[in-house]
């Protein structure tokens, strides 16, 4: 499987999935007209990565505003990680937010609820 790169715009986050290091990064706002179009390749990439071998998977999220279908897609992604974690796979999420935007941190906490894998919400250094 190759790396997955999506250039971000005003309405979609930049996506960078690095197969070699097992790091998936998503940065920006997420208001796609078609969330399926944006997130299905991401979900496919994660499924392929998790199926390929036993290397750890790390997500680094710097997401600001998400529309409802993006929230759903992200929960699907996190559910995938939870299943992998239940199966003994090393997975972890770091959610970065700007210190003056505490609202984003509160939302990341909402996402984190119910998951048992390492999920950190961290103020970003500027």
């Amino acid at each position, binding site marked *: 499987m190759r790396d997955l790169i999506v250039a971000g715009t005003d309405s979609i986050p930049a996506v960078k999935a690095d197969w070699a290091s097992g790091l998936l990064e998503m940065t920006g706002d997420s208001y796609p007209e078609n969330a399926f179009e944006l997130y299905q390749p991401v979900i496919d990439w994660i499924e392929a990565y998790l199926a390929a071998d036993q290397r750890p998977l790390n997500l680094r999220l710097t997401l600001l505003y998400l*529309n*409802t279908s993006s*929230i759903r897609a992200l929960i699907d992604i996190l559910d995938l990680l939870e299943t992998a974690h239940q199966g003994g796979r090393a997975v972890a999420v770091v959610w970065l937010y700007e210190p003056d935007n505490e*609202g984003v941190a*509160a*939302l990341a906490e909402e996402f984190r*609820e*119910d998951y048992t894998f390492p999920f950190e919400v961290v103020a970003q250094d500027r």
Partner: protein
Amino acid sequence: MMKFDDPLARQIEALLADSTHEGHPMRAVLEDLYARFLEQSRQIDRISHIADRYQNAERERGQGFANSYQRKLKQLEKIVRISDQYQHMLRDVNDRLQWLSSRDELTGLPNRRFMLGLLGEQLRKLGRGGAPVCVAMADIDHFKTINDTYGHDAGDKVLARLGELFRDNLRAEDVCGRWGGEEFLIVLPAADLEASVTTLARLRELVSALPGPTGESLSFRLSLSIGLVRCDDPGEAPDTLLKRVDAALYAAKWQGRDRTVVA
């Protein structure tokens, strides 16, 4: 169903095994009947077993549906909760941006855009039978000299101080905004000219008591020139009204500054 070790079965088997009944016509019939009974018992057993398994499978399937339904429901609730929270956050941001876009950063007063909107609103109210409105334009006298003598930072400080003074010393329904440069537009709804002149005289007095830009109180005295008009014609365009206020302000300057001129 009869168990094979129950008393009747044992009795039948004992009778069939007993050689004294050999040749009895009922013995052969009993033997056939007993064999058929055993076969049917086995069939019933098998059918019950299969039926039980079907029932279990169905129950598990139903349980699976219920579990997956519960999981989906929980996920949906989470999506809705998070989505609502995002909307709250966006509304807060929107409110903040709206506030910022209507404020003058230096003085914290409403800006020109806001004041134009307010003026239009007051004229529409007047058109619907509302009370006449007084409008004043205040200009700081010799502001250029303050900037030239003490620097622009000092000039900015004077503007900020004046903003504070206007905000704190007008009626709740009066609104003062920064019109631009050293000009302030004051809208006094439902006020007559006489009361407005009094209000503005008090403002000018307070302004003249302000310390100079560097804190000294003697070598410097701030003053305002003010043009004041009253609008009771709902057909008057905001532009025309503003031109009248400007003309009154110009007259105040021309007459020697530090005064209010009513036109």
